[in-house]
């Protein structure tokens, strides 16, 4: 295993741990997205480009977008609105 792959593996573990420790749901989805991206690079290193393409399209793309849509449906993404409200209250 080359140094590059070892670094990627380290990133993978860091991502996997920080997904569950992140308190913001939006952040954990973004970290999950980067996890999928690193995983797809690792698949290329392991000489299975088929899996890499699928991982990049499904893991980093479609799944995260579905997560975003779900978060929006259950109204868990409220950062921008709250920020706007805070700015509004400050300006008043």
């Amino acid at each position, binding site marked *: 295993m080359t140094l590059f792959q070892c670094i990627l593996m380290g990133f993978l573990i860091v991502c996997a741990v920080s997904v569950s420790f992140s308190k913001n749901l939006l952040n954990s989805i973004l970290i999950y997205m980067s996890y999928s991206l690193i995983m797809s690079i690792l698949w290329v290193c392991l000489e299975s480009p088929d899996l890499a*393409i699928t991982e990049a*399209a*499904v893991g980093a*793309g*479609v799944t995260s*977008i*579905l997560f975003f*849509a779900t978060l*929006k*449906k259950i109204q868990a993404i409220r950062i921008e609105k709250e920020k706007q409200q805070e700015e509004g209250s400050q300006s008043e």
Partner: protein
Amino acid sequence: MSKLRPQKEYEKTTAFRFFRWLSGSKDPYIGEVEMHIQEENILPEETIIERMREAQMRRDKVYDDELNKPAHLFHKVYVIMAVLFCIALVAVLLITVSYLPPSGNPDNPVNNVVSERYIESGLQETGALNIVAGMILTYRAFDTFGETNVLFIATCCVMILLMVDDAILKKQAVLNDRRYEPKNDAILQGTAFILCPIIFIFGIYIILNGHLSPGGGFSGGAIMGAGLILYVSAFGFKKTQRFFDEHIYKIAKITALCMYGLIGTYFYMTGANGIENHIPLGIPGHILSGGIILPIDICVGLEVACTMYAFYALFRRGGL
């Protein structure tokens, strides 16, 4: 011929009162019945605090660890059992792993006749340069057919759960969904304008080249589905419906699955009974080669692209 009564005379009749009561323009009680305005029952603050304290004391008695011995015991046993269970699970898995043969050993049971056959005669038997695609879609076409069915059933279930039938509700959902985001984002639309054709062409290339280069039906379909999602999120559902609405979705999905079923059935029947099948394998390396792999790739790709897009559309607004 009935005569039209003057208004004052009509106001005395029962019919007028009845219709007035029916329309609710005059409350029959106001001015007719003696009424007192009820005083609001205000509890003094001390009483409320007293009651809350009592409830808290009762709760404390039930949930207090020192008084409620069984609950205390159960909690302790629960924690210990959870830790023990985790340790046992880890131990079992590690012991199982230690029994696995070392990787790279030529005598491993993985390196048996099946994989040898795949590697040695895969090219002649399937006509596919990409052995993975050849394996998945010819030797193991039945498995892949099951997977495609799983996708179909999953979309059906999501449709049952999230589909909104009512047109008004659908409109409301769209309004609700796009309320907090810019409707025509210039950056997003510009990016999508450049990227979408490239993504679609790349997806189609991966599907059509599934038997020659890495990729295949599932990967290409997923890329096309992601492209469709990008297009929808940039330009909205109205523009997508011009080329991809529910009708076309149903036709594409069901045709793809049935085509796969037909081709697969022909292939299994001829293969299982030792009959020569008449699908030419072609010259390996050419685009029209690989026997049944190319049509099946196209079917799987259509199916997957439809599924991805349908999931997104159903999650966003409950309809295609």
